[in-house]
């Protein structure tokens, strides 16, 4: 079905036509990629903009994924956190977040504030895409990372405190970690590999979620009562949107369109499939029934797990990574959590923390230069050093996240309280924090 077929006959050209052709190349190549100075490629830009839109959609998707698992009286409060984070971190990112993350490196630790604020210089290319496209793409990652944390403190955290926490957390944890890994910081220099955010996104949010869940304490009903998801179809829809958006998240992280993006796309998909299957089969063996929430959780675990590795490994490795992620996370949410007794409402640590950590480690095992010459070989391809580097990166991400989250939340608890009152928790956060209810009843 190639339109090439539509060009028929032989094209005979004399030298003049040749001249013309060549000059046209110069004149028109600009809109079409090939612009002078080797800059903006329309194809790469198209792919990156689409990916950016896809990643943006993940946060509303997450809001629904999370919201469906809560009780009716709290669904809006968690949705609100996601939507508010989009707006808040969206602005934070262009004001100072991007500068801290991607500004000229200062001692491997943080970006300099030279690029504070946003200006029309974003029209200029950054590699093959306009700066604006790159800024926006990266901004969507900053957003969803914070939004992820909201799942751990759902049904009890004060909105105002969450708001302040998000701003501080994003500035310190996210922007620093992002700089270390992607902005030319010390982890990047060390050779730490994180294709699309295993450490930057999933470890940071998962580890912080664990700390937050412990510090804020259990919900009144936990663990006596398993809170049933009030609307699993909403969670299913959220899963669909997350999965869809994740193609932009991982395959978009190639920044260019082509083989690398296609590889990352394939790995993303296969890891999710394998993880979904594995979770279902564990469910089936363990409790006798395959569950819908299980396949959704599995798919998300697989997606998170493959995120750091998507552009560095072969599809077979992706399936293994997904399968292991499902096993780990299943164990995390159904054995570890009840045993330890913390109340990580929506299993942000159990899913993202665990599979982010696993996936980042797995890069050190499965990465191969055959998949991506800009990557590295992992242990299984003869390079144990990469595994060590990955462990260093994982440790750094964990330490940064845990320490900062702990400190910030401790202070905020004193200053403005983390939790709503008991009565507000009984009535529900939608009414008490936002004066709204998700659904009417009588009509």
């Amino acid at each position, binding site marked *: 079905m190639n339109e090439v077929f539509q060009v028929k006959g032989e094209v005979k050209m004399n030298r003049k036509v040749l001249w013309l052709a060549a000059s046209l190349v110069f004149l028109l190549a600009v809109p079409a990629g090939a612009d002078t100075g080797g800059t903006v490629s329309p194809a790469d830009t198209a792919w990156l903009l689409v990916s950016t839109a896809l990643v943006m959609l993940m946060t509303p998707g997450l809001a629904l994924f999370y919201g469906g698992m809560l009780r009716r009286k709290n669904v809006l409060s968690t949705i609100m956190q996601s939507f508010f984070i989009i707006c808040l971190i969206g602005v934070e990112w262009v004001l100072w977040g991007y500068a801290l993350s991607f500004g000229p490196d200062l001692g491997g630790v943080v970006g300099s504030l030279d690029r504070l604020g946003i200006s029309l210089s974003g029209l200029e290319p950054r590699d093959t895409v306009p700066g604006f496209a790159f800024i926006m793409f990266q901004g969507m990652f900053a957003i969803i990372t914070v939004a992820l944390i909201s799942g751990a403190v759902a049904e009890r955290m004060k909105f105002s405190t969450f708001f302040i926490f998000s701003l501080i957390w994003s500035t310190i944890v996210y922007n620093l970690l992002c700089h270390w890994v992607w902005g030319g910081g010390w982890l990047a220099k060390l050779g730490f590999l994180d294709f699309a955010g295993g450490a930057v996104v999933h470890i940071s949010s998962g580890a912080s979620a664990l700390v937050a869940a412990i510090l804020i304490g259990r919900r009144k009903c936990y663990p006596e009562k398993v809170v049933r998801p009030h609307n699993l179809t909403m969670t299913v829809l959220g899963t669909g949107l997350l999965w869809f958006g994740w193609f932009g998240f991982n395959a978009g992280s190639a920044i260019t369109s082509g083989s690398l993006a296609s590889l990352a796309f394939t790995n993303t998909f296969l890891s999710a499939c394998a993880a979904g299957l594995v979770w279902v089969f564990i469910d089936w063996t363990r*409790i006798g029934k395959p*569950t819908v929430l299980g396949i959704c959780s599995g798919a998300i675990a697989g997606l998170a797990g493959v995120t750091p590795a998507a552009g560095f490994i072969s599809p077979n490795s992706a399936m293994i990574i997904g399968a292991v992620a499902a096993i780990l996370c299943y164990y995390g949410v*159904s054995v570890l959590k009840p045993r330890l007794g913390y109340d990580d409402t929506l299993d942000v640590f159990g899913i993202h923390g665990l599979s982010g950590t696993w996936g980042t480690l797995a890069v050190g095992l499965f990465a191969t230069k055959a998949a991506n010459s800009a990557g590295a070989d992992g242990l299984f391809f003869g390079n144990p050093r990469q595994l060590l580097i990955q462990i260093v990166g994982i440790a750094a991400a964990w330490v940064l996240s845990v320490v900062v989250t702990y400190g910030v939340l401790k202070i905020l608890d004193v200053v403005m309280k983390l939790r709503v009152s008991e009565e507000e928790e009984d009535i529900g956060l939608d009414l008490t924090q936002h004066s709204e209810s998700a659904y009417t009843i009588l009509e």
Partner: protein
Amino acid sequence: MKYIVAIIQPHRLEQVLRELDDSQIYLRTVTQVMGCGRQKGVTEVYRGNVEHGNLLKKIKIEIAVNEDFVEPCVQALMKGARTGKVGDGKIFILDLHECIRIRTEERCDQAIG
């Protein structure tokens, strides 16, 4: 006059309504309720956490009738609702003191039908 309250299995609703129609009892009020009786509740599982629930979906039908319609009504309800399995439900009959049709202000026996 009596106020009959029946709790039945949701999947018998259609059948019960048909039987009531056949007995020429056309007026009723139906509500969705959750019931807990002798029937074993269901087990639900969310992320590997098993929850033994004990409330099951049931349907409540309320019918106000004159005395001579009580027995036919009970029979119709039983005929429609009975499967012979635990969970079939109950019929409760209360005394009805007064009945008023809002539209016409008719009272008692005239109002009820």
